[in-house]
């Protein structure tokens, strides 16, 4: 009996197995991206509504700058970088898992 082909051979041959592997990879990547998107929507996406509803509570000034304006002008940019960095690390990890899976003899 012929031994089971390696996953990498199946990928190249485009077998049903390879389609399954790739679909699973795609689903994991999409899930990760959507998780990051939901985080973004929760933190930055809620800002307009929060500031609209609670504008008066944030009318305080810190060092002469109103808190509400500061909240929009500075911290979101740092949050973008942090979220992007975390996402990129996890996404590379998902790719690496897939490579390991495929190369496993």
């Amino acid at each position, binding site marked *: 009996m012929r031994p089971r082909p390696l996953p990498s051979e199946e*990928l190249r041959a485009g077998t049903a197995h390879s389609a399954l592997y790739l679909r699973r990879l795609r689903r994991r990547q999409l899930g990760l991206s959507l998780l*990051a998107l939901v985080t*973004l929507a929760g933190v*930055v996406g809620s800002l307009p509504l929060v500031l609209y509803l609670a504008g008066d509570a944030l009318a305080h*000034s810190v060092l*002469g700058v109103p808190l509400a*304006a500061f909240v*929009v002008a500075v911290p979101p*940019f740092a949050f*973008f970088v942090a979220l992007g960095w975390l996402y990129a690390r996890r996404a590379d990890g998902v790719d690496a898992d897939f490579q390991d899976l495929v190369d496993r003899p």
Partner: protein
Amino acid sequence: MLGVLAIGAVAAASLGVGVWGVRFARTTSDLFVASRAVSPWWNAAAISGEYLSAASFLGIAGLTVKFGAAALWLPLGFAGGYLALLLFVAAPLRRFGSYTIPDFVEARLDSGPLRSLAAFVVLLIGSLYLVPQLKGAGLTLGEVLGTPFWVGVVAVAALVALNVGLGGMRGVTYVQAFQYWVKAFAISLPAFLLLLHLGGLPERAALFGQELPRAPRAGLVVELEDPVTVTFPRATDFALDGAPASARAGEEVRLPEGRLTLPGGAAVPVAEGIEAQTGEDWSRPAGGEGRGSPLAIYSLLLATFLGTMGLPHILVRFYTAPDGPAARRTTVRVLGLLGLFYVFPAVYGTLGRVLLPELQVTGETDLVVLRLPEAAWPGPMGDVLAAVVAAGAFAAFTSTASGLLVSLAGTVSYDVWGRVRRGARRTADRRTAFRVASAGAMVLPCVVALLARDVDISLLVSWAFAVAASTFCPVLLLGIWWDGLTAAGAGAGMVVGTVITTAMVAAGVAGGTVEADTSLLAQPAIVSVPAAFAVMVGVSLLRPRPVRGVEALMAALHAPEGVGLDEQRA
């Protein structure tokens, strides 16, 4: 004089870096995508340099003077767009390995006609976005050199066409990386020095309290070069060319050209399109009607968040990364570089509201960044900083215009010229075509910029973003993540998205100035983006016609490098 030197230095250095880059531009692949061998930091600086346009360098601060903190959502969306790119587009698209969006559309959906439609949309968005860059050029050179508007427009158009035609993408990559640092330096250094010089934010009460912007104690003299209609927020006595006059609170007055004199402490009248705001209203990012209403904010955020990935000059950059993970790393660096820059325009807007009240009278708030240094620090230091800022503005519109022109010329030389002359497939021919196209593609935006001098920069910019968000964004997202997208669905969605955005913006323009109740017309994304997505999904589901070999295409998009599929990639 200093301004001339600074702009000349940046122009000469850009040309020099471009010529240096040309030495590498030998093959077609070099010209289009820099041979895909640019390191993440170089690439990230080039992407940021290309992206930070006249709208970012001059426009955000101007809008902040005009509308207050409600304008600060704009840089947030501009930067956030790269997060959307990172999460859903960057790595798959790099792995797919097409040069341009039309390439992607044709390869993914196996349709020639769709490619032509995409090429048309590239030309539309690119030209729309080139116009405000050239307008910024006319304004800046006019302010610094005193040249007529058209001289600045034509000079910058010619310089950019020359640089792109000679260097292609490879030369441009280094030029734009260089120009990012010029811009970051030019916006941050004067901001820091001015804040230090002023000892922090001056006249805090006027900035953030109950006060309206007021004339300084010694009075305010405004030279009006054109007639202007203004609204006086308070009853004011003023003088026109020395003749005394007065206005009631809330009265609208048409002022002829001439010299307007306001007494010290008078609340300054505001031009059409500006609302006189107390410091408290002005410093509130969300609230009230119009720009501050949550609906308008979300529409703006949606357009910029999703529109960035659809700008033709942005995506082509990701093909210069060597592989998928490098594309991700590059994008994270871009987020950092953009964030660094976007903290500063708000400083100019805030100081400009207090120190340059005359801009509210004339309505030329786009000039606030250029004029602030001399207003805040009269004397030689102010002149030096003004020169630095002018050089940064120059770098801003030239680099964005270069990036746009690369993608426009690529599209024209391949999709238009390449179709007319089917035989023109040899490298030498294609290079000539690219060079001719880079001159030709500049002509129309240049003419429009000269004719449409009075159209607001921010209106054209938000239109371009909205078209991108409601055409290429759904095509990319659905094409990358959904097997079921059909060519008919993608085509129908792109047409619907373009038509809705264009119709709404046109209706807004026809309805006069974009005021509170019509502001959604100028910000159509919240309607057009869902509509485009719905049409694409709906048509694809109603007439399912699977694209040939969709499994292999999806594998090319998503399979990591080194799993035996690399030879399928371009």
